[in-house]
């Protein structure tokens, strides 16, 4: 179970005007602005739930994922994941979670995928049998057979993403964080990734938290949606709740595409 209670996190952002003169000035006196990434975020996610976590760019999605995975320490508030405080028991915590950052690779760029997997086996101290079983299962389901012996830099984005997902599941984590896993993928890869995530949740009861801007991902995968904007949770419900919320202010047809509904919602909530 994942609980977040009144979590706050802010960053200092350096500001200056354009130009060399300004850059020199900033060496001595730097203007900083404090940006609240998260203010008072609370929610609870049960075991084996699949939750879509959406919001416009800069809403605080990544910050939330980073706090839940033990990368960042919040200023205030509590956060418990299966009874662990992520940033305090970091090592114990990360053994039991998997994280996929869609925009960043976790594989070693210049060696065949299987070399990366072997190294991950050592990093996570995965027992031999578990590793062999997981590898076999993931290879079958994500169709990695042809890819394992190819260096990562020569994979297409779709192929690489399948390998990334496999890499984060080798140690059989109970919770999986997916940060924009379908970004930039073609239709075929997207569907393959979606299907796989769906099955993972069904068969292994893995808790999955998914951030994405692709509303079709959300529609296909998740029953529950948490909408965040300007660091606050604005809605926690189903897709239908979201439709209703969008329709309540705007007397328009409910048959609009999801993207339009979400765009209207962002506008309406004034979180862009």
């Amino acid at each position, binding site marked *: 179970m994942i609980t977040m209670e009144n979590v706050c996190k802010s960053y200092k952002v350096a500001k200056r005007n354009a130009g060399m003169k300004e850059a020199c000035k900033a060496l001595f006196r730097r203007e900083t602005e404090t940006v609240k990434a998260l203010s008072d975020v609370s929610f609870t996610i049960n075991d084996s739930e699949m939750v879509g976590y959406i919001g416009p760019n800069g809403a605080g999605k990544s910050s939330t994922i*980073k706090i839940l*995975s033990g990368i960042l320490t919040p200023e205030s508030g509590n956060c418990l994941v299966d009874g662990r405080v992520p940033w305090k028991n970091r090592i114990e915590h990360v053994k039991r979670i998997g994280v996929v950052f869609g925009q*960043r690779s976790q594989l070693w*760029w210049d*060696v065949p995928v299987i070399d990366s997997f072997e190294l991950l086996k050592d990093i996570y101290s995965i027992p031999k049998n578990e590793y062999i079983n997981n590898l076999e299962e993931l290879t079958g389901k994500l169709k990695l057979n042809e890819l394992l012996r190819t260096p990562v830099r020569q994979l297409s984005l779709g192929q690489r993403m399948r390998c990334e997902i496999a890499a984060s599941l080798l140690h059989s984590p109970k919770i999986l964080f997916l940060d924009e896993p379908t970004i930039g993928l073609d239709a075929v890869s997207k569907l393959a990734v979606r299907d796989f995530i769906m099955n993972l949740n069904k068969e292994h009861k893995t808790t999955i938290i998914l951030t994405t801007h692709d509303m079709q991902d959300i529609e296909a995968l998740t029953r529950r949606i948490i909408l965040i904007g300007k660091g606050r949770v604005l809605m926690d419900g189903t897709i239908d709740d979201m439709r209703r919320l969008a329709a309540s202010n705007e007397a328009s047809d409910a048959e609009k595409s999801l993207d339009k509904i979400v765009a209207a919602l962002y506008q309406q909530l004034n979180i862009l």
Partner: protein
Amino acid sequence: MKRGISLYFHYISVIIRSTMQYKMSFLLSIIGQFLISFNVFLGIYFMFIRFNEVKGYTYSEVLLCFSIMLMEFSLAECFARGFDGFSSIVRNGEFDRIMVRPRSPILQVLGSRFELSRIGRMLQAVVMFVYGITASGITWTLSRVITVVFMLIGGTMLFTGIFMIYAALCFFTLEGLEFMNVFTDGAREYGKYPFDVYGKNILRLCTFVVPYTLVQYYPLQYLLGRTESPYYIIYPLGTVFFLAVCYGVWRYGLRHYKSNGS
């Protein structure tokens, strides 16, 4: 600990395999390393010309001092120079990945970079070290051998500490700070001569600010038979406190890690 070390070598082996992917570049760097090893002998020849008697230290004493200092530095460099690349790891967000893996960040940072040239420089240091020891004309008693071993351990800890501080500062500045090289490569150069030849103030600076003298000047006095006090044997191990302070700075930086935008 044992698993940590075997994991470290697994990391290094992946890096070397990565280098091997680029066949031409790998071949050239192997040839380069081979040439460097030859260079070692040239280097030693020029050493002969460069070292002079200074302030009561004979040529062979200076040579001993330098060869030990070089060995200390090279040991630290071979294993801990990975901290050098830390600024880019922090800046491009690769550190997030390190944080979500169940291993000490230090081990992962050290395992993230390895240049073949380090092996070449290590080889160079070994040759110099063996030469310096044999040419010193010292009667090697057990206590003196122990002193040298402690110097190597202490010196490795000292330079590892400096590399670590260099990396820890990146948590705050996000940039590598070139001036820090004064404390690493610079110290190796100045450390050719026992620190007292530079005068009292430098000697103090190199004891109380960064304790180089603990692994060079003081134990050297014992090696050269200028003191009989057994304390001088264990002085090098004092650098463990320096390393502890460096580790503290690193931990402090780690807690203040801010990650980046996306």
